[in-house]
């Protein structure tokens, strides 16, 4: 089983070169890079990779990016959001083209992962590009035919910033136990049917599961988002050990 192989790895991670097979524009600020990594050992939903860029003078910069593809898909896809002052992300989103080489190591992390075999209700809370590892979980649920009830609450500034919106709406429309809720914190387009405020306790109560259902929550986003949402979850009665968090910041750019 791929998952066991990943968790039971008995040698240190090593860097490997892969080819950029496809570049997909998701939003004006985010692109998905589909990579051809010949030595890829497989991954779990929620894991990430490190990307390393090396300049001609030998200067290196290294960042972590979440895997967007499901373990079941047989491909490795990362979604990268361009940070205006970023050192790495503008290269990945603006310069990199199909056929280029990219150096990466992974998969990394066994803490912020979800397996379709877990049966309890799942609440996914994503802020901005924090939706990326959650998308791997959502795609994994669908690909593996998982029946755990799953809800996503996805917060972004504007409608234009919503990554995977069409796919999420399609998956939610299937009525197979996955539901998607969107909230736009800065600007809501005319006719917007989603929420229009930051994630708070009332919003969590509205879309989340009762604590009695013993749900598990995955929170990913900028540090401020993660800390606020995690403490609101605890206040709403979810035990801390049922809340998994992953933060990113400017060093993720």
């Amino acid at each position: 089983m791929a998952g066991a192989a990943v968790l039971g790895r008995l040698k240190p991670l090593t860097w490997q070169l892969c080819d950029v097979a496809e570049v997909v524009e998701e939003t004006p600020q985010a692109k998905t890079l589909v990579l051809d990594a010949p030595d890829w050992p497989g991954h779990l939903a929620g894991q990430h990779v490190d990307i390393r860029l090396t300049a001609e003078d030998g200067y290196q910069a290294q960042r972590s990016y979440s895997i967007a593809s499901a373990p079941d898909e047989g491909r490795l896809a990362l979604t990268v959001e361009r940070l205006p002052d970023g050192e790495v992300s503008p290269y990945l989103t603006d310069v990199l083209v199909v056929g280029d080489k990219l150096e990466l190591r992974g998969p990394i992390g066994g803490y912020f992962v979800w397996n379709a075999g877990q049966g309890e209700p799942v609440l996914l809370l994503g802020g901005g590009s924090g939706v990326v590892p959650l998308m791997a979980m959502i795609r994994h649920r669908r690909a593996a035919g998982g029946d755990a009830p799953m809800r996503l609450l996805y917060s972004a500034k504007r409608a234009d910033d919503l990554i995977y919106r069409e796919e999420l709406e399609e998956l939610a429309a299937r009525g197979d136990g996955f539901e998607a809720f969107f909230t736009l914190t800065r600007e809501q387009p005319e006719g917007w049917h989603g929420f229009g405020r930051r994630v708070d306790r009332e919003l969590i109560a509205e879309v989340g599961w009762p604590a009695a259902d013993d749900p598990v929550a995955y929170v990913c986003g900028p540090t401020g988002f993660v800390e606020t949402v995690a403490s609101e979850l605890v206040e709403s009665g979810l035990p801390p050990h049922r809340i998994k968090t992953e933060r990113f910041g400017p060093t993720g750019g």
Partner: protein
Amino acid sequence: MTELKLDGNAAAGDLEQLFAFEVTTAVGTCANCGAVGAVGDTIVYAHAPGIVVRCPACQSVLLRVAHDGDSRYWLEMTGVRSLEIRV
């Protein structure tokens, strides 16, 4: 500075370059306050010349990793009383 604060998942790549196990699910005990928790749940500051991993309960330094960019790493972990590893 709160936006510079990451978590143990951000340190995993460098730590797994050194250790032969999945490090974010390893369970550490803080030498200062005795708090027990997964490495993935720690607080990480990665913008310094090295990576600094802190206890989410008492904020004390658990471990530090520095890398010369080539083949040498320095690992200091006096802040970790023990580490429980499952392989």
